[in-house]
């Protein structure tokens, strides 16, 4: 097939499908509603690493483990989880680092009290 035909089909096809999905409500992100959901989702990703405690917002959860911390976050309509390598103050919340090219650093939007509590938990373990 000539590129002059193939290229428009590819471009219009990708754009058309993406727009259709968005307009029909398939861009809605997952919402974390309670601790049970956070624990369930964490177990889905790390079944051998049960949390000691969890703190969460509708967007993200901090998970305390026996030997460190993890973060449960949004991945579109699904969740994704990773062990935390770094947690630092950032404007409007915290910045979480994972030391993994497949898992870029994330900005966590938190209230002041949430930020202070999450940071205190992290620093208690890493003092």
């Amino acid at each position, binding site marked *: *097939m000539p590129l002059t035909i*193939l290229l428009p089909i590819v471009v219009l096809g*990708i754009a058309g499908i993406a727009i*259709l999905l968005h307009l029909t409500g398939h*861009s809605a992100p997952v919402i974390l509603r309670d601790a049970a959901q956070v624990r369930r989702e964490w177990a889905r990703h790390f079944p051998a690493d049960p949390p000691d405690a969890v703190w969460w917002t509708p967007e993200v959860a901090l998970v305390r483990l026996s030997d460190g911390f993890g973060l449960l976050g949004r991945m579109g309509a*699904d969740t994704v*989880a990773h062990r935390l390598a770094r947690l630092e103050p950032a404007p409007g919340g915290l910045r979480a680092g994972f030391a993994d090219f497949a*898992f*870029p650093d*994330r900005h966590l939007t938190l209230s002041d009290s949430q930020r202070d509590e999450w940071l205190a938990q992290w620093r208690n373990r890493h003092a």
Partner: protein
Amino acid sequence: MPDYPAVVDWAVPVFVLAILMEFAWIHLRRRGGRYETRDALTSLLMGAGNVAEGILLGFVGWWVLMALWRITPLDLGTSWAVVALCFVLDDLRYYWVHRIGHRSRWVWASHVNHHSSQHYNLTTALRQTWTGTITFMVILRAPLVLLGFHPAMIVFVGGLNLIYQFWIHTEAIGRMPRWFEAVMNTPSHHRVHHGRNPRYLDSNYAGVFIIWDKLFGTFVPELDDDKPEYGLVHNIGTFNPLRVAFHEWVGILRDVSRRGITMRHRLYYAFAQPGWSHDDSREDSAAIKRRYLAAHPEQRGTPGFDEP
């Protein structure tokens, strides 16, 4: 040189149409799968990138195959019987490339992106590698050329193989008739392959004919009480196509350049099974199955947990 159509290019409009039909079915019926905008967009961009990589680097594999063609004394011709035989043997070739792709990190680094979605729909089929050329798996096509199948025919049947595999990336189809499930790769068999459940790891590598898995002991049926959960053992946290395409290569680079490990360790980090580590700090699929069986001993001996 025999002239065969670029079948994958011609299939692109069919792919787009089929995705729209599957989406409409799922959206209207509220069952048969899930779609998410960014996930689907990433998959589609990976597919476009795969086509671009073929245009840019496809000549490398083609050059290798043509070099072999020039030295082989055999020429089986271009009859349709030969094309059919080539299709079957190429599918056997695909089985082994695919199996190596899950058992050696060097090839897994290329293939991992295909498994990196937590969704399973027709767009997942198009989430293809951008780095297939540098795995050098083209070498597994060498026996076909040396047996007398023309490289153009091999590329043609490889395209047909890829097109066949498109429609099996769906949850909208339950199971096909029993005779079909027995011989052919199907949505049910391939859902198992994409499952991250311990039971389903390293199974169902088939492209077109599921008989290869049955022959070589890697077949696991889809169980109604163990619904496949899609994605990677450790799911990636990005929709960025560049990170999706290259993340495992970056992981290999970081591991082989570690300080304080031996040359053997570096080679193992590059070529051993995914999850291998010099200090046992990671789990490969066998370790994941062992851990699961330790927690669920009643599952020992059931499909996917046959090995001691």
